[in-house]
């Protein structure tokens, strides 16, 4: 008892500071969480929500045994992993570059321009893709073909081979600037004395960037990387759904679009809930594993 008293006499202020956030999370996130059990139940209105029969893993089995299980899981992974490999370093590099721009006005201009695409809605983005990359009339498609970056016979928006690069690169285009904001902010907290010390050592700008700026970003990078890994299976539904067409369906059918096809279009709600829960569990495992690895290797982690 005395121990507890002593503990709280030392920490009550910290608990008080946490309290508003914890109360909010409790009311709006934990109280409604009883909804999760629906993935294991057979929904029957007549018996009521809490009275429905338990069906255990019936709906999970239905998904695991369907011929769409492996294709959707594989496509989701391929898209997500490519997205992280290409998309994760991009804002870091951009932040380092912006941080090195000497002309103040130009730096501000670059910063402002790069974050605008974040505000473009997915519907508009996909319309733009379809117009700018259209075969024959698309400005960007023609430009890429003129530079021989893309073979002139390829229909960029209408073939399976170009779906992945197009999806990932337009994603980088849209989010790179926005995601760089946090890194730019982190770079602003680097102690200038370190730069001076480096200069005394005769380091050039490249070396300064690698030895001072980059290490300063490591905690932020690790935390964001862990969070990204925790969202590994969360590939954006909207954009994939809108970019799907008959030629790329083989590689663009992902878990979320499949859930939509089965669950929403055909009112198979229990099935959809189960697949969603499966998705969440995989994500959660990825987060925990990455967090653990990160803690062992770099010392920074979420928990």
């Amino acid at each position, binding site marked *: 008892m005395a121990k507890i008293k002593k503990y709280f006499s030392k920490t009550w202020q910290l608990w008080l500071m946490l309290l508003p*956030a*914890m109360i909010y999370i409790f009311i709006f996130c934990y109280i409604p*969480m009883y909804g999760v059990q629906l993935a294991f139940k057979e929904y029957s209105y007549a018996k009521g929500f809490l009275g429905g029969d338990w069906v255990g893993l019936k709906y999970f089995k239905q998904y695991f045994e369907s011929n769409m299980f492996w294709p959707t899981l594989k496509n989701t992974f391929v898209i997500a992993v490519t997205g992280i490999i290409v998309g994760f370093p991009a804002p870091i590099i951009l932040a380092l570059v912006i941080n090195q721009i000497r002309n103040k006005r130009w730096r501000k201009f670059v910063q402002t*321009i790069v974050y605008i695409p974040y505000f473009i809605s997915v519907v508009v983005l996909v319309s733009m893709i379809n117009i700018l990359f259209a075969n024959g009339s698309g*400005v960007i498609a023609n430009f890429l073909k003129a530079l021989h970056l893309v073979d002139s016979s390829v229909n960029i928006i209408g073939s399976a081979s170009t779906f992945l690069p197009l999806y990932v690169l337009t994603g980088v285009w849209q989010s790179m*600037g926005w995601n760089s904001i946090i890194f730019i902010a982190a770079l602003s907290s680097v102690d200038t004395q370190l730069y001076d010390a480096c200069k005394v050592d005769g380091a050039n700008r490249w070396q300064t960037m690698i030895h001072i700026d980059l290490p300063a970003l490591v905690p932020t990078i690790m*935390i964001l990387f862990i969070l990204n890994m925790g969202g590994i299976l969360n590939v954006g539904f909207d954009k994939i759904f809108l970019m799907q067409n008959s030629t790329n369906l083989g590689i663009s059918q992902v878990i979320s679009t499949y859930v939509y096809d089965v669950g929403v279009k055909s009112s198979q709600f229990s099935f959809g809930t189960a697949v969603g829960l499966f998705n*969440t569990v995989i994500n959660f495992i990825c987060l925990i594993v990455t967090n653990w690895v990160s803690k062992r290797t770099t010392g*920074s982690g979420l928990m």
Partner: protein
Amino acid sequence: MQKSDTYNFSKWPDRIFAAAVIIISVLVVIIIAYPIYFVVIASISNSNLVNQGAVTFWPKDIRFYGYEQILHDSRIWTGYANTILYVVAGTLLNMAVTMPAAYALSRKDFKARNIVMFYFVFTMFFSGGLVPTYMTVSSLHLVSTKTILIIFVAVNTYNLIIARTFIANSIPNDLYEAAILDGCSHFKYFFSVVMPLSKAVISVLTLYYAVFHWNDYFNALIFNSKDENAPLQIVLRQILLLNQAFASGNGGVQGGYGQSSADQVKYAVLIVSTLPILCVYPFVQKHFEKGVMIGAVKG
């Protein structure tokens, strides 16, 4: 940048480096700016020509139908007023809740922090779904009130983690120890040392939260059914659908008569909804300037 004059530009690696920085930044700006420019010209060009790919560098067959449709709609001003209220009040609340919690979680000597962190992180993944949440809101009698749209996301775990990481890594622990020796409480240390030194992360989170409230559409859709509380995004969505109605669906069911202007609204909506929030950025940006924080430490 304070350090700019201290470098020796005559060293060739630095010259190459400086050139590379300029080239990369110019390329990035071109790649990003062109599609944005495209949205602008598409919003004032004949939609048929835009769809055919005939509009590339200059607007063609200029018309302002899209903007007229949006600005002539009286609902839009209510929408703006509501959105500004939600952004300002919501963001203030967010910061008031997030920053103290982030500080508490950043204290390495606070033993319970990992458990508490898990308490937050768990909710990023598992949620009960919309109906239980709706019922909770409903039992608090908050459905269709302005209050719910301000308080619904009082703290975002992702932002909380960012703030915690920043405080833990950028504020030297020496400061805390010195403050404790002076008899400083956590409260006093938080307000007089942590907050002033966290300007960069405060500005980032303000931006994140403000943009979230600005773009919030889904919560308003679910938790509000009164027109007088509708934020800008809901109003714009309705205007957009009204005009897409010309251009979508199946001729047997509805017409496609307004085709030549139909898609303009899509692009114009983007501009009308984005321009105001873009103006917030410069205010946030100035806090990223190097030296702001370190100066504070020294002073």
